[in-house]
């Protein structure tokens, strides 16, 4: 009896000295920790990522697309497309809260470059306003296996009216200058190195060529594979769901449409994110490259481009210390 008492008291004491057992992982508030850095910037290549900015962060971004590397517009004559640019975009984004990011941008626009019977993609001088809302975050414990972000933009063209009959730039009224994109970005960080996103998308253009439809649904796919701590391969692809009627309309007018595929190399240097991209999309805005990509990878009609983004922290720095 005595032995039992002494024994039990000794062991109770022994357990006490194993101080780490006082603090199991679950006691340190790890539950539902959110996954961070599914992507390293708000863009994958041409597609949006699920990332929004931190509160009071400002991002300045410049994107540039050169002309076709090969094919009739490329080759040595144009120094593999570097003599020309198909599109240039400058934009600012600002984090109002950690979940809500707004932005404004201006892009040159990438109108159809060939002579066509039906001017179907004529808009230039594009001004974009956009809004992005982080609806759901992925959690480390797998309770919420993916993240959801909503994206919308409104784009207006300030170009002068094109008087050609049936042109999509033959603006009858101011609203004809507008187009819109709505998108749901569903993303998952599968591992430290690999993230993937699915982007159901609707592009609406108020004025389109006579045989085209204003609404175009598309599905975007995007991914990021990080091969060291600061570099990653990024890619995205869009599948537009055109009706047979519009497909026939375009092919009857000798216009081939392709699905935009973009591949890039991402370099992150703490505050700056650089993308060096290859894409068959001439345009940078969703409103243009999803419905109107007429250049094909297999014909050498892809280009190189770059995105440079710089983050500025504008929030008060003294607020972090309690």
């Amino acid at each position, binding site marked *: *009896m005595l032995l039992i008492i002494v024994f039990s008291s000794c*062991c*109770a004491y022994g357990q006490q000295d194993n101080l780490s057992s*006082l603090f199991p992982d679950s006691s340190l508030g790890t539950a539902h920790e959110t996954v*961070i850095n599914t992507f390293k910037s708000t863009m994958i290549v041409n597609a949006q990522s699920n990332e929004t900015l931190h509160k009071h962060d400002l991002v300045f971004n410049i994107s540039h697309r050169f002309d076709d590397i090969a094919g009739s517009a490329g080759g040595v004559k144009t120094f593999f497309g570097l003599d020309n640019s198909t599109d240039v975009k400058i934009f600012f984004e600002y984090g109002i809260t950690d979940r809500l990011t707004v932005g404004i941008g201006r892009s040159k626009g990438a109108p159809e470059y060939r002579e066509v019977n039906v001017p179907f993609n004529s808009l230039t001088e594009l001004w974009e306003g956009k809004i992005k809302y982080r609806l759901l975050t992925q959690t480390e414990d797998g309770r919420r296996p993916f993240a959801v972000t909503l994206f919308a933009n409104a784009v207006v063209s300030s170009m002068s009216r094109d008087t050609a009959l049936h042109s999509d730039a033959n603006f009858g009224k101011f609203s004809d200058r507008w187009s819109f994109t709505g998108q749901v970005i569903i993303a998952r960080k599968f591992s430290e190195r690999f993230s993937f996103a699915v982007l159901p998308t609707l592009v609406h253009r108020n004025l389109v060529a006579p045989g085209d439809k204003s609404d175009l649904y598309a599905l975007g796919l995007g991914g990021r594979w990080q091969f060291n701590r600061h570099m990653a391969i990024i890619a995205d692809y869009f599948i537009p769901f055109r009706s047979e009627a519009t497909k026939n309309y375009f092919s009857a007018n000798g216009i081939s449409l392709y699905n935009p595929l973009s591949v890039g190399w991402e370099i992150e*240097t703490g505050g700056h994110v650089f993308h060096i991209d290859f894409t068959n999309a001439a345009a940078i805005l969703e409103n243009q490259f999803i419905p109107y990509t007429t250049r094909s990878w297999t014909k050498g009609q892809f280009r190189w481009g770059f995105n440079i983004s710089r983050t500025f922290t504008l929030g008060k720095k003294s607020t972090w210390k309690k």
Partner: protein
Amino acid sequence: MNKVLTLMLGLWAAVPSQLQAQQVYVSRNATISFYSSAPIEDIQAQTSQAVSAVNLATGSVYFKVQIRSFRFPKSLMQEHFNTDYMGSDQYPYAEFSGKLQGLPADPADGAYPVMVDGKLTIHGVSKEYKENGTLTLNSGRLTIVSSFKVKLADHRIKIPSLLFQHIAEVVDVKVNATYLKSAPPQAGTR
């Protein structure tokens, strides 16, 4: 008579264990901060969510902190710290386990310079540390304050060469923990 004797012996056996159990002090909001000077901008971060325990009877001391709990003045810096430097998905905690030295057997209220000797694990890499600190006892409240240096290379934390903000290879760490006596465990009074 026999029962009384057993009871007395039982009490005698239980009392010291209860006393020792009461020598365990627990902190659930210990503050850990670090500072690194860098040419463009100094880098600093802080957490008040570290946990710690001290057993004055044995001198054992233990700290644990969740890497993700460190707060930076810039959120982007915090992101880089977690994903680029610390790999906090893979190594979510830093831990220290060691012994206090230089403490009297049954310390009265007052401040004592102490030496802490033990193993610090950061980024999944452990290293032995021997650091100075101050332990203060004040009517049941115990405080430990210490500051020491951590060399990033010792824990295989790499400074990316591409990073525009080069940071120092040695980081100053400060620890400040206030403890309360833990409730007597049931085992001691069984």
